[in-house]
């Protein structure tokens, strides 16, 4: 056995021990925990920014914040939610679960894993520090279109560029680690087509990350040289092309939105069979559909740019390619329904969130299909309708997916069952508030309200007030979630090894809480599930 950081660092004091434990850890479970807490912290930070925006939009007129600050809020909210909440949240889940689900002792590259995580607090520290700089934080939207972000960007844009670079490095290293782990540390008796769907979706996501994060890095580097080294990549005055920025950005950006949702698909595909007590319907088509979505995601970026004056042929190509994504996505939804069909369902909190995920994500998918139609997109584009669309796929999609995963696996992590009654209250609060917040945005968008505006004309007032009230309830519901998580960590009913009667897979063969080191010898696959046994199931752990 190799020496571990925590074994060789001299223990000087309790504080020092605490710091070195978390700073130097190479344990996948510790690093998973760190990622999840970072994600959770930034979730409340970016959520508070959304609250500031909804407060300002509660009524027409300027009441609380100035236009420039509003633009900073919407930019930071988007950047933090995408790069700081959803991505680290999913990476945290991957760190905890992938080794447990494939019977690996740890991630394949543990020190790299530590490095991938510890880049992030500094990256977000840089990004958030820009709020306190002269000229304020980046104010050009999370899509940072040139030349608003280059020639006209505030001085803090350089901090943003460096921050994005660091996040990108972290993501690529994390993705490499996940791919290497899945290919090399899988227990030998588990074939690729035996892997749990969460592992499959993450494998595909990791490839997407490796392919597109460097593109983003390229875009911000070109911004940096435009700003400081006299190049004119994106400056028309210097012979450059502002539209090229959008092409590069969305070549990253569209696969990115699938990075933000594919692991969620995997989570739903784990949870629904467990609580339907029935095998996942169409395992193979689920894998192929995920791969098809990932492949198509590289050839649809132009649908973000229909209003930029594209030629007809290009518009038609991107429209057809985008519509085609509905097919594999539909297959996934149908498979989930078929999994539920004639199952024997119970509705614990993870299942509720998974069902909320499927229904509300599908609504977001429907509006996505509508947005694909170019003529109609001329009316929807850059209105609140788009804001409604992507919040439907991201909040009940990525965020509900992550929450479902936390409820599903937290007994394995902490050894305690969460409070089921509070979990259900959390779900119903969140699901009602999500719809109250985002559904009216469809209507304001269709009526003509552009997105990213600090103030609006009187005709949009009623629905905006409803959205703001919904957002307030939504924010409160997540405070309840924090309480539930902390309460579960501190105590609660003891979780069994199996945790969920219908659960299947290697992670449910290790004790709850999962010991620090698991699967030091490769387990047999498929495992013998011990559904009726108590938690002292004999399994190969240290």
């Amino acid at each position, binding site marked *: 056995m190799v020496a571990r950081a925590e074994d060789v660092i001299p223990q000087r004091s309790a504080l020092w021990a605490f710091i070195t434990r978390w700073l130097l850890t190479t344990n996948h479970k510790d690093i998973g925990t760190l990622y999840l807490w970072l994600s959770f912290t930034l979730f409340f930070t970016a959520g508070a920014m959304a609250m500031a925006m909804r407060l300002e939009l509660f009524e027409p007129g300027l009441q609380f914040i100035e236009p420039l600050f509003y633009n900073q809020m919407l930019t930071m909210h988007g950047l933090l939610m995408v790069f700081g909440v959803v991505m680290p949240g999913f990476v945290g889940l991957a760190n905890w679960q992938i080794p447990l689900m494939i019977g690996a002792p740890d991630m394949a590259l543990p020190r790299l894993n530590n490095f991938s995580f510890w880049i992030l607090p500094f990256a977000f520290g840089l990004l958030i520090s820009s709020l306190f700089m002269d000229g304020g934080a980046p104010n*050009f939207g999370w899509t940072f279109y040139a030349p608003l972000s280059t020639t006209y960007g505030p001085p803090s844009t350089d901090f943003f560029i460096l921050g994005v670079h660091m996040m990108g490095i972290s993501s690529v290293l994390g993705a490499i680690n996940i791919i290497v782990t899945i290919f090399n540390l899988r227990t030998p008796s588990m074939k690729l087509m035996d892997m749990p769907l969460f592992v499959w979706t993450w494998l595909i996501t990791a490839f997407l990350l490796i392919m597109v994060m460097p593109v983003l890095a390229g875009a911000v580097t070109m911004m940096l040289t435009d700003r400081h080294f006299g190049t004119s990549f994106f400056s*028309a005055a210097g012979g450059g092309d502002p539209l090229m920025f959008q092409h590069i950005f969305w070549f990253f950006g569209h696969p990115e939105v699938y990075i933000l949702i594919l692991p969620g698909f995997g989570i739903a595909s784990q949870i629904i069979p467990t609580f339907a007590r029935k095998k996942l319907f169409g395992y193979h088509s689920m894998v192929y559909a995920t791969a098809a979505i990932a492949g198509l995601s590289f050839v649809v970026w132009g649908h973000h740019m229909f209003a930029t*004056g594209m030629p007809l042929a290009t518009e038609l190509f991107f429209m057809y390619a985008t519509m085609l994504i509905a097919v594999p996505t539909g297959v996934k939804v149908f498979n989930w329904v078929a999994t539920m069909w004639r199952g024997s*369902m119970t509705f614990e909190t993870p299942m509720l969130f998974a069902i909320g995920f499927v229904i509300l994500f*599908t609504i977001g998918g429907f509006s996505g299909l509508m947005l694909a139609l170019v*003529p109609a997109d001329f009316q929807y584009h850059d209105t609140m309708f788009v804001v409604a669309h992507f919040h439907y796929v991201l909040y009940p999609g990525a965020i509900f997916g992550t929450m479902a995963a936390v409820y599903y696996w937290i007994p394995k992590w902490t050894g305690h069952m969460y409070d089921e009654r509070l979990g259900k209250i959390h779900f119903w609060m969140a699901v009602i508030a999500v719809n109250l917040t985002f559904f009216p945005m469809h209507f304001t968008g269709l009526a*003509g309200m552009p*997105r990213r505006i*600090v103030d609006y004309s009187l005709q949009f007032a009623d629905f905006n007030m409803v959205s703001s009230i919904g957002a307030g309830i939504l924010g409160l519901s997540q405070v309840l979630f924090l309480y539930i998580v902390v309460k579960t960590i501190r105590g609660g009913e003891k979780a069994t090894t199996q945790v969920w009667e219908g659960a299947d897979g290697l992670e449910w063969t290790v004790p709850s809480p999962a010991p620090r080191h698991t699967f030091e010898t490769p387990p047999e696959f498929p495992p013998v599930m011990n559904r009726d046994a108590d938690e002292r199931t004999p399994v190969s752990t240290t």
Partner: protein
Amino acid sequence: MTSIASTLKNGLMLMVLWGLSDTVLAAALDMRAGVTDMSQRIQWLHHLSLWICVVMGVLVFGAMFYSMYAHRRSKNPVPADFHESLSVEIAWTLIPVLILIGMAIPATTTLIEIEDNSDADLTILITASQWKWHYQYLEADIGYYSNMSTPSEQIQNLEPKGEHYLLEVDNPLVLPTNKKVRFLTASNDVIHSWWVPDFAVKQDAIPGFINEAWARIPVPGIYRGQCTELCGKDHAYMPVVVEVRPEAEFDKWIEDQRIARELASGQAVADRAKTWTMAELMEIGERVFMEHCATCHESDGSGQGSTYPALAGGDIPTGPIAAHIERVMFGKSDTEMQSWAPQLSDLEIASVITYERNAWGNATADVIQPRTIYAAR
């Protein structure tokens, strides 16, 4: 509090009216039909795709909810164990493809017509800058700026908001009915987007590019829209207003503009000939400053950080006159300080510079005459 109550009441009313009245529903919840053939066809396309989604949603969610009811453990304690079916999986792959083709065909034919910008009767060059539109009638050689006219008191909640709050301008774009009008969009600084929902025309204005779009508007009236691409601080304050007049009235309006231009150039000559007093210039200057400059530099000249420098005690308003004139007339490149020479008259520029040099404790006692500005052009 009353407004919350009224919102709740309105929300309740909407639910009650749901299904009772198509018109109320349509007004509040639907995509705007607009007035052009194209906007109405786009609304039809929106309805087509919406109803397809609604039907699909009812089927899929209906099956889910039925299953949740009928296949819950208390009713169905023993789960089935099927987990694949090739025929079913092929069916639910192919059927959506057919539905999508059904949507793609009308979308394609409509799009082909939208992109046909040929044979226009009239061409308008729309040039965007932060945060206003400039309209140029290419055939008539007429051009002017269009700024939002909502007073800042309404935005700051000091006065009641007007009916067209944030959707009103000083000089609307005037168009004739029943002519194919081609819009060319361009930008002087960042990317903007010109949108009039009732025409279903939304086209980005991108520096270095000229994009095109068109509309044929059958109904006279006033149509309102907004900039729809985040373009900086005052993105929310960049409305588009189009006034559509019957053709004869439009022709007369064009003629009136020509006459007005002649008169204005005569007025400019007179302005140059006159030697203005400090008091006169300060009065005009304050008005011009509040209208064009205060949004960034603040009405008390205090500015907003280094992005929008303070003018009270600032280097330029208290420094050499020539540098001050240069900055106001030609702006500072790569910043939001734009060239005001094309936007304001000699008198306006002279008075606003005079104002900046003598307001808020800037006591240069300099008086700048319109003829000085004319010479600097």
